[in-house]
């Protein structure tokens, strides 16, 4: 065998495996937490899509001091969030709506922020974050910084006005931004063919005057390579680019979706294209890692998830009174006048 390592050393190759296993373990832990009643709201898996997030994030400049590249992940890109320094325990706190979570229980799941580490959590309305990332990366260009931004969105999100307006703005302004299209063939119950007439998102690139490339999203090294090349071009002043990740959503849209609209045979076939299994085999076949090393990574990632989840479980939910702060930087929202000991509407 003479697989390319794309210039990565043994440690880096192991890093990638670690990130894949961590994503998988964190989400499996979440499922367990949900069964135990600890999760508030919906639960979303990235099963089968882990390599897209991991490979892409690994190709970027991740810093801790607000000088690195900027990431906007999605619910299916938790692996990128972790690589950018998103803490595992915060992931669990967010899903559990704990008062100790980065958003203090105000927002859900991966919707959180750390501008020093370089990630901005998404909002639910699809498409919006392209506009936001266009502005973030516009500022990199205006301030002559060598930073770039990467924003993830699913295939379905490409139908929104915000997606088009944001991408076109970025393209015209030559914003140093990479749009990652997570083409997992489905948008909730809607197949990609009902969200777009093109068979590959790369066909859309020329429509915006930007370069686009498609890559097998289950192949972590191929994704890493594609995004590293895209990043080099974007960083050198080419402007915006698109990278399409082709893969398949192997779980329902969320935990509550049994995805009975998908042919089970197709799902079974897709199980053979598991990004973690594929990469594991490749590491062994090429002697980039030993069985013992891999098992150690698997144990370690399982264990850190278990420990972080246990710790998060023990933490408190927010105090309801905290609902009134931070709506503005300089104002506090009045408490309901009916909540005090002697209700007085003039105090509202």
């Amino acid at each position: 065998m003479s697989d390319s390592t794309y210039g990565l050393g043994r440690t880096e190759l192991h890093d990638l495996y670690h990130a894949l296993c961590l994503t998988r373990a964190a989400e499996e832990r979440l499922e367990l937490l949900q069964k135990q009643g600890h999760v508030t709201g919906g639960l979303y898996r990235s099963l089968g899509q882990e390599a897209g997030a991991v490979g892409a994030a690994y190709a970027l400049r991740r810093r801790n001091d607000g000088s690195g590249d900027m990431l906007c992940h999605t619910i299916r890109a938790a692996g990128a969030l972790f690589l950018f320094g998103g803490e595992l325990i915060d992931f669990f706190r967010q899903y559990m709506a704990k008062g100790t979570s980065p958003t203090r229980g105000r927002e859900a799941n991966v919707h959180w922020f750390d501008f020093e580490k370089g990630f901005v959590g998404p909002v639910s309305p699809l498409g919006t974050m392209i506009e936001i990332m266009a502005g973030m990366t516009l500022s990199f260009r205006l301030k002559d910084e060598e930073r770039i931004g990467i924003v993830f969105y699913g295939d379905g999100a490409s139908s929104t006005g915000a997606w088009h307006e944001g991408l076109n703005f970025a393209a015209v302004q030559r914003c140093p931004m990479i749009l990652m299209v997570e083409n997992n063939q489905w948008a909730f119950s809607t197949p990609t063919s009902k969200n777009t007439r093109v068979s590959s998102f790369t066909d859309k690139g020329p429509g915006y005057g930007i370069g686009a490339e498609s890559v097998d999203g289950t192949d972590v090294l191929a994704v890493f390579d594609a995004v590293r090349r895209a990043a080099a071009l974007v960083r050198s002043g080419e402007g915006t680019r698109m990278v399409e990740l082709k893969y398949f959503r192997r779980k329902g849209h969320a935990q509550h979706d049994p995805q009975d609209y998908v042919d089970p045979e197709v799902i079974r076939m897709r199980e053979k294209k598991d990004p973690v299994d594929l990469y594991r085999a490749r590491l062994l076949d090429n002697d980039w890692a030993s069985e013992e090393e891999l098992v150690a990574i698997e144990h370690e990632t399982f264990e850190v998830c278990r420990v972080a989840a246990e710790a998060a479980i023990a933490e408190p939910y927010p105090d309801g009174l905290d609902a009134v702060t931070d709506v503005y930087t300089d104002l506090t929202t009045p408490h309901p006048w009916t909540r005090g000991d002697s209700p007085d509407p003039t105090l509202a």
Partner: protein
Amino acid sequence: MDRETPEHLLKTKRGEPVTMLEAISEALFEEMTRDDSVFLMGEDIGVYGGAFKVTRDFLAHFGENRVIDTPIAEGGFTGAAAGAAHMGLRPVVEIQFMDFISPAYDVITNYIATSNYRGAGPMPLVIRGPVGGGNRGGPFHSQNVEMAFFHTPGLKIVYPSTAKDAKGLLKASIRDDNPVIFEEHKGLYRAPALREVLPDEDYIVPLGQARTVREGTDLTIVTYGAMVHKSVDAAETLESEDGVSVEIIDLRTLLPLDEDAIVQSVKKTNKLLVVHEDTRTGGIAGEIAIRVSEKAFEWLDGPILRVTAIDAPVPYSGSLEDYFLPQTDDVVKAARYLAAY
């Protein structure tokens, strides 16, 4: 097409009680059966039957031309609905969560609402979808959107609180030649307490008419949607613990507002409390207060008060959301204050 009606849409025929969600499904189904020009558009409404399953089995029954799974493009398909309405169709679009109606704000307020006035003709379309909090949905799956549209002349806004009203109001909305925004509180969709046997006949509930939920003499609560039920709970507590008699008016339609019903009740009880789940500033309580001030000031024996959500985004965690939302106890306390005034 003479396919058989799916079993689950025959509950009223069989004399069985239905939930509010089932009542909405029946309304859509019956209107589509009655009138070929009625058709549906929305995300995941076909094969999946909608995120909340309101249109379950509709695709198989009515076919792809009348149950259209759209791209994720609220602005696009709402605008397309307007175009179809111009051509004589009567579209009903589903917004998966009404929080996502915002991309359609432009076409709704600038185009759809102004159509008749501009001479472009009537706009018989319904924009419906789930709203409301209490489900730990966080800031983007919990909002009430009425007041974003209340200020736009040309629109009607409907917000039912019971299964019977939901069915009758939705049918009336579909038959109305004006654009209607139809809000369905997701906390009421499957609430067991709301299950009721509906009349097995083609009935409508006319738009613009409030309903007296409960008669009373000491004070009036004007409310709508999920807060109707919290207000009723509060009224029962006030009756048994304080001997206070509360009249409750369910607006049902927010635009046009049934001013007569409000004013009449205030003239009878002389005190008014408005209760809404929507946030406080710019909520409908303000509009109601000014109308009562204009039409019934002399009859008031106390300040017009309101119980509402606080002015904040809808928070996700249970403790925060419970604090954010108006609760039965808030209604009780406010009513007590007003009764003693």
